């Protein structure tokens, strides 16, 4: 099966510019996550979608970050305006939602490396 697709793979922007990332999860995976991974740290959840609804966005800096998942499939994450501290890898993941647990685990994309200069 195809994996989680993300684009672009790399992006360099100046501070105060805007940027958007795209994610296409595994077909049939209802749950989609966006994680921010700063260099040398573990990923931190930004937002979780269940189909096209938001489950958790408590860690999303809503004054500059926004995300949507139209039609419950693809998702985009936007930053406007970007700050230097937004430099990080942005990982998208998807999973099946099963009552008995995440038996199939979580599948991650290769991420987008954002550099803000």
């Amino acid at each position, binding site marked *: 099966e195809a*994996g989680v697709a993300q684009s672009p793979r790399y992006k360099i922007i100046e501070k105060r510019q805007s940027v958007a990332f795209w994610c296409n999860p595994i077909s049939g995976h209802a*749950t989609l*996550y966006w994680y921010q991974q700063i260099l*040398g*740290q*573990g*990923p*931190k*959840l930004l937002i*979780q979608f269940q189909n096209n609804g938001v*489950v*958790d966005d408590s860690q999303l800096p809503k004054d500059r970050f926004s995300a949507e998942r139209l039609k419950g499939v693809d998702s985009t994450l936007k930053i406007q305006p970007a700050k230097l501290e937004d430099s990080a*890898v942005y*990982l998208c*993941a998807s*999973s099946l*939602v099963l*009552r008995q*647990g*995440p038996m199939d*685990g*979580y599948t*991650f*994309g*290769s*991420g987008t*490396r954002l550099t803000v200069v």
Partner: protein
Amino acid sequence: AQTVTQSQPEMSVQEAETVTLSCTYDTSESDYYLFWYKQPPSRQMILVIRQEAYKQQNATENRFSVNFQKAAKSFSLKISDSQLGDAAMYFCAYVSWNNNAGNMLTFGGGTRLMVKP
């Protein structure tokens, strides 16, 4: 809030030898899952092994095994017969399987594993 701690920023092992990576977590939940993920330079998170908290038996996957100590909230990863391809960042992750909560992964800070030929 759940936290995951990896106390070893870097570890080194000789090829063909055994290495153990440490992980501790803090939770008040009784139903949860623990994972070890490998992140090579390609940035994609690859599932190494998972453990269901209700299972007393430690999980094993070929050369990878865990030592799950539920009372101590400890979840270490043992890699036997280390290979050059095992060199990567390793992340311990936790998810609570509570129907009232989002089933998102919480990651530790990671351990960089180097394998010497």
